[in-house]
């Protein structure tokens, strides 16, 4: 296995960052781990992936991985995927910038997001903001933001 091993505390200890990442993946149907924020992406790949999601007019939550290197280490250990951004839909890794872009162009991404099936009576799951601890509601953008602090706050 060549997956990146996080620098871990002894395995008997709890891992709050990993728990927070797993909780964020479970709680947000469409979740993007990225460098920077949707408003201010810090990397061209993250920027392009945000642009694709916005082009589909789909709401999504985002986690900035930059504030703490452990977020990226733990994320890559969970997802077995080495690069950022990473898009999760319904708890599953869809891919990074290349795959997301390719799937957008082929129409598969809209399908994966349930945008087409919504018209056929499959209701899109709602994400009540109060159900997501630490989420910052964003007034201007469609994207909701999981603040890096919310991940860090769970450390305590």
């Amino acid at each position, binding site marked *: 296995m*060549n997956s990146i091993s996080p620098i871990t505390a002894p395995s008997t200890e709890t891992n709050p960052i990993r728990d927070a990442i797993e909780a964020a993946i479970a709680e947000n149907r469409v979740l993007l781990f990225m460098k920077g924020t949707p408003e201010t992406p810090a990397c061209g790949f993250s920027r392009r992936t945000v642009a694709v999601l916005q082009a589909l007019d789909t709401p999504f939550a985002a986690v900035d991985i930059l504030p703490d290197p452990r977020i990226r280490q733990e994320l*890559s250990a969970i997802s077995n995927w080495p690069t950022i951004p990473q898009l999760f839909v319904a708890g599953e890794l869809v891919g990074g910038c290349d*795959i997301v872009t390719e799937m957008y162009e082929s129409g598969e991404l809209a399908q994966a997001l349930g945008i087409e099936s919504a018209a056929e009576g499959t209701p899109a799951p709602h994400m009540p903001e109060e159900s997501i601890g630490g989420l910052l509601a964003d007034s201007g953008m469609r994207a909701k933001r999981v603040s890096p602090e919310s991940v860090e706050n769970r450390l305590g």
Partner: protein
Amino acid sequence: MPTPEELKQRIEAAIPGAHAEVEDYTGGGDHFRATVTAQAFAGRSRIEQHRLVYDVFGAEIGGPIHALSLKTEVG
């Protein structure tokens, strides 16, 4: 500093029957774009195809190889 030729050779050596085209698209020796064609991709999802290529480089991805943009095809 890795070169496109080195990346190409490592991908082709690690994935049997693979053909890779690699370019350094910034000229800085750390941002690469690769198109990889391999029979080994058959029956695998895009995620799994890309993982096969990423696994060639392990922890170098995100380190010396800052970015490796991938396109994979069954061939």
